[in-house]
């Protein structure tokens, strides 16, 4: 059992939990993920590690309520327990020898991009962070990000924070303005990562993306998380989750991400019915 020590609501649909997991906290590195299961009936769901504290022995996960498990996670509070919490899984991000990096986060992906920026920043690397959100109301961890980079650019699709545009708009502007990035790290929705990769390919800048497909065990056993990279089948859980974005088949990944969509809707509706049934009882 793994205790939730802290829970914070970051916006209407995004929450943070800090979980007591000393063994994992000791080993976790940016880019790695954990798999959790709420209770006996729960599914195993992967979440990228958003932060860790080796001294306190905690691992932080930031999640958006998009399905059954995240909805149930949001019903948990400080002091509650998760039945299972496994990790750190996947390979840690590698950024040997880089000097000037653009770290890009889209929506919830910002939470996953943050530890990468933080690590690079602590290594003395120059980091520009570009985060994108639909509007200003759902901007998360802006202050943390600001502290983890040289320049922070927060973009909104509707311009409600005064910076209208996609992350790609800002990235292109910076590159055109003369920034010489030796690496771009893009983490967010598949369509966003695809757009970033199309742009950076044009400029020939190496780009790392973080894939988060459906998986069960997270140790290479189910093969459900397979992604096609450079024409080869890779397992995101053991070969990734970081991959060379210029080689990832995003269209395939987008299709595969929909495999259980209908079932997930059923599960969520069923859960809502159960909760309402309990409230009415």
């Amino acid at each position, binding site marked *: 059992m793994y205790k939730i020590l802290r829970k914070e609501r970051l916006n209407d649909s995004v929450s943070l939990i800090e979980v007591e997991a000393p*063994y*994992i906290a000791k*080993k976790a590195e940016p880019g790695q993920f954990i798999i959790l*299961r709420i209770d006996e*009936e*729960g*599914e*195993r769901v992967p979440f990228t590690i958003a932060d860790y504290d080796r001294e306190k022995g905690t691992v932080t996960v930031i999640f958006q309520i998009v399905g*059954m*498990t995240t909805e*149930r996670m949001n019903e948990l509070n400080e002091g509650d327990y998760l*039945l*299972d*919490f*496994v*990790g*750190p*899984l996947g390979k840690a991000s590698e950024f040997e020898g880089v000097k000037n990096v653009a770290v890009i986060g889209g929506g919830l992906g910002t939470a996953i991009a943050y530890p990468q920026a933080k690590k690079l920043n602590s290594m003395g690397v120059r980091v520009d962070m570009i985060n994108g959100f639909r509007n200003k109301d759902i901007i998360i961890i802006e202050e943390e990000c600001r502290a983890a980079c040289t320049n922070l650019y927060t973009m909104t699709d509707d311009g409600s924070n005064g910076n209208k545009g996609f992350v790609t708009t800002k990235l292109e502007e910076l590159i055109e303005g003369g920034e010489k990035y030796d690496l771009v790290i893009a983490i967010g929705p598949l369509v966003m990562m695809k757009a970033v990769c199309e742009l950076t390919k044009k400029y020939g800048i190496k780009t790392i993306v973080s894939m988060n497909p459906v998986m*069960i*065990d*997270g*140790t*290479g*056993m*189910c*093969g*459900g998380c*397979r992604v*096609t990279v450079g024409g080869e*089948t890779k397992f995101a859980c*053991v070969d990734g989750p970081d991959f060379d974005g210029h080689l990832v088949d995003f269209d*395939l990944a987008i*299709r*595969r991400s*929909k*495999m*259980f969509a209908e*079932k*997930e809707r*059923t*599960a969520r509706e*069923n*859960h809502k019915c159960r909760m309402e049934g309990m409230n009415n009882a």
Partner: protein
Amino acid sequence: MPNMSQQKVPMPEQDPNVRNKNFEEVSYGYTEEMAVEEAQRCLNCKNKPCMGGCPVNVKIPEFIALIAEGKFEEAYLKISETSTLPAVCGRVCPQESQCEKYCVRGIKGEPVAIGRLERFAADWYMKNVKAEIKKPEQNGKKVAIIGAGPSGLTCAGDLAKLGYEVSVFEAFHTAGGVLMYGIPEFRLPKNIVQTEINKLKELGVEIHTDMVIGKVLSVDELLNEEGFDAAFIGTGAGLPSFMNIEGESLNGVYSANEFLTRINLMKSYRFPEYDTPIYMGKNVVVVGGGNVAMDAARSAKRMGAENVSIVYRRSEEEMPARREEIHHAKEEGIDFKVLCNPVRIIGTEDGWAEKVECVRMELGEPDESGRRRPSAVEGSEFTVDAEVVIIAIGQSPNPLIRNTTPDLETNKRGCIVAKNEAGETSKEGVWAGGDAVTGAATVILAMGAGKSAAQAIDEYLKSK
């Protein structure tokens, strides 16, 4: 006077057309009367050829004689002297190629139903005896077991009985390994596995789930920092092989591991009561001819698929699956397309599997495995409808341990190299066994390996 019937006493089972719609156990097991009657078929041969076929040396004629006398509890205890998981072995061991293969009664007629009798004794004991397990006196030495599958659990049980402080590290949230995630409920009820595991816990074995060794702790850290005096690696063969044909990444294509894990371990057959979903189709093709392929096909049928086909590139004779499993699958309405090989999976425009294109095969000269080599018949392509395709062509060992244990020798197939029968590895104080060493094999061979390793670890630690 022995019972001279040439046939085994039949074991009652659920009707095929009923059972292919539920996940309850196929066979009901012998009643006391049936067990006694079958036990009386044993001739109690002096040289005990059956025992030579058992990887864990169960004292077969002795336990059968006890059943014949109606001493069921004693029969169980006799089996337990050498076997850690009798209720499991009685169900999933390939007895036809082990103990029963050497049974003298098999020369003329059917061999004694050793497996069914073992199962009977184990089930009878579980149901009727509330045993108190005495924790052995501890000798103060600690052994780490990596992987809570058949080999690890056997090794753990044997070492605990000898007084070692045993900790088992399991990556999944439940101990049992393939017994939990792979073999379906209808062949091996999960409460039986858990009862056997609970007995180990009563012996003092500590099981730490959610611990991926190679990630959260390395083998070196277990030995150097966590204070273990020796380690046994029984991490199995968990990495699924794919065919590398066109269309394998379409939605609806699963590895058998994923399909079976969703159903068995995550209980998606009880979705939405359990949260884990599974995507099913009306038409299912399972590729492969082993027990895993049979399990996947029979599970698919139970999940409501109308047409389930097994596609296998050789003939039925070469299928590695147990005859009993093939027989059960056929009874349940699984269609066998043998001498067929999938060449690609055809999908819909939006990326869902729709059909499998196969080619007919013919058998030529025997290959290195001794089985006749299949080759494609030109121009014989045909398609089979399949919204779900399950690839069950084998598994290889997981690289997590070998990638993080530099001085552990492995071969080019990724298997850990064992220097001897006991599973001694290139690394001091570390033994390995089961599928992690042999590549995908059987539960009982893994148990045998766990047993030999336990003995060797005991000798090593005593001499240290």
